[in-house]
């Protein structure tokens, strides 16, 4: 079972980001409505996905690099501290976000926007506990997080883990895009925007609490 849960977690986190209107599906709806074009809506999701992928990917790379130079227990402690601190910041300044938006955005600007929103949201950071919980591929000894503090991971083991992490990021982003696309099309075609007034609960509060919880779990797993 323990082989499956990181994949489930990665997909679930992606689906959660997909649900959040501030992460992109609502932007895609607005861009589609501005030009009365469903093609524009769907096309907008591509750069949004790319930006998100890079935001999460950057954190994964940083984690992989860190694992080579610092011990697993230190990495675990630092990750936990970062998650708790970031969650606390999101609670303290819930409306802090990058100011680079506009409605006339080129694809690369949309990708940059998505990258910044995902980063400011801590989307990549939330991936850390998932990766720390990844069991090693069966043929290689070691565990991404639970390796003894005395031993560094061997090069092949590290390589395999990075490949696996990359696959997890892809699954995460694919899940997000699937949810985003479904929601955006549903709102654009059938549901209408009035739903926002009723259903847009304060996901930022939930997310900030989740970051802090993940930080705590990080120490426990």
């Amino acid at each position, binding site marked *: 079972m323990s082989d499956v849960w990181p994949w489930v977690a990665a997909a679930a986190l992606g689906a959660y980001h997909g649900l959040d*209107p501030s992460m992109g599906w609502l*932007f895609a*709806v607005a861009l589609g409505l501005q030009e009365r074009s469903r093609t524009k809506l769907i096309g907008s999701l591509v750069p949004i996905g790319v930006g998100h992928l890079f935001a999460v990917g950057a954190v994964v790379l940083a984690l992989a690099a860190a694992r080579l130079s610092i011990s697993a227990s230190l990495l675990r402690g630092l990750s936990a501290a970062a998650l708790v601190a970031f969650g606390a910041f999101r609670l303290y300044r*819930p409306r802090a976000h990058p*100011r680079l*938006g506009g*409605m006339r955005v080129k694809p690369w600007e949309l990708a940059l926007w998505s990258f910044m929103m995902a980063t400011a949201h801590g989307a990549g950071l939330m991936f850390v506990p998932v990766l720390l919980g990844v069991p090693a591929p069966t043929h290689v000894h070691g565990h991404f997080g639970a390796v003894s503090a005395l031993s560094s991971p061997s090069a092949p083991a590290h390589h395999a883990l990075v490949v696996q992490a990359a696959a997890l990021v892809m699954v995460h982003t694919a899940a997000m895009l699937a949810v985003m696309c479904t929601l955006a099309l549903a709102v654009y075609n059938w549901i209408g925007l009035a739903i926002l*007034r009723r259903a847009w*609960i304060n996901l930022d*509060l939930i997310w900030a609490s989740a970051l802090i919880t993940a930080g705590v779990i990080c120490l426990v797993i």
Partner: protein
Amino acid sequence: MELWKPDQTFYPSPTLAMRAPRERFGYVATFDPNTALGRANGNGRHDAICVLDLDPSSPTYGQVVGRVEMPGKGDELHHFGWNACSSALCPYAPHPHVERRYLLVPGLRSSRIHVIDTKPDPRNPRVVKVISAEEIAERAGYSRPHTIHCGPDAIYVSALGSPNGDGPGGIFLLDHDSFDVLGRFEVDRGPQFLAYDFWWHLGYDVGITSEWGTPKMVEGGLVPDLLLKNEYGHAIHVWDLRRRRHLERLELGPEHQMTLELRPAHDPTKPYGFVGVVVSTKDLSASIWTWYLERGKWAVRKVIEIPPEPADPDKLPPALKPFKAVPPLVTDHILSLDDKFLYVACWGTGEVRQYDVSDPFAPKLTGSVRLGGIAARTPHPKAGAVNGAPQMVELSRDGRRLYASNSLYASWDEQFYPDGIKGWVAKIDVNPAGGMTLDPDFFVPFKDERPHQIHLEGGDCSSDSYCFP
């Protein structure tokens, strides 16, 4: 405070906002003309935001039921706006869980901006913060703050000029949460020098600004010499909102003096809007112009011209006697949320006109209500003779109720209504199919103070911006 669900006064689109519940309160900026004109000898009243009861089922309907005074004197309250509005739902910078709660109320003379909390008791608002003229001067280099609009990323404020009373005027930004002055908007202002109103087309990342005059050109009253030389504003400007750069200056012709209120289409996909011109120095007419985007370039075209009305010179103030006519003086206008009807206030002749602007290039006159006026002095059924005329007009979100106040600006009031304006607010009922009538039972008089802009509980037709059509 963070809400769990979006503030229920926010609407994604203007169409949805038209279904909003009826307003129960109106907020009116009032000022003491004697202090503003420097003749109160320290005995004048404080300027105030007055709360009007607009709930017809209330026993105090149509009365002033609350009043919050500014801490200083002589502010000359004028325009004001909300801390947050429907633009909080804009998808690229969403913050839907803030509250529409604070009114930001500039003193056009004092340059102070008052932050007024309308909760928990909307009848009893309180001043919770004052942004000093010095902070605005230091951080933005501006003074005489005027229009407030809640943008997706900050609160935008226009200002008539520099701290010493000259130009340029422009726009500065306030932080959404702390209300700190963030600095001036313009990175490159191009040829723009005069300022007054501003608004935007969020769907195009484009801002529009208009031109009145520098503080020195307006504070002592309309300067006839400057007017005859066509030195008040006669252009509007188009801006790149994201890069904060001047894009185009649209010239209306020098005789079209004073481009004031800007009313862009509420639908963010429609790249056009309406600007009023107070007076033409050629023939005293007033006009409404449509600006629009065509093949990547912005342009402006006159779509309504309102002629002056002949009048007995005995009924005219000294400056107008030689002309034997009353200029319409279009000083404000308001566009319904469905972008269908434009209401034009003629402060000189004492008339509110309703135009069907479904085709923004071919408006059709569909209604007229007369009240007050320099020469006409059309009485109000409830109050009898009135002076002044409908000046600031505000329309309810459903488009059915139009509220009008009668004062323009202390020193200018004296020039056009030398007997001294006695303040009032009146209401006009609108037929959704077109046409309108004065509500004979609604008349709110003000004593020793004059009302200017009115904003309605939950938003109105000049308070909110939308990112969805």
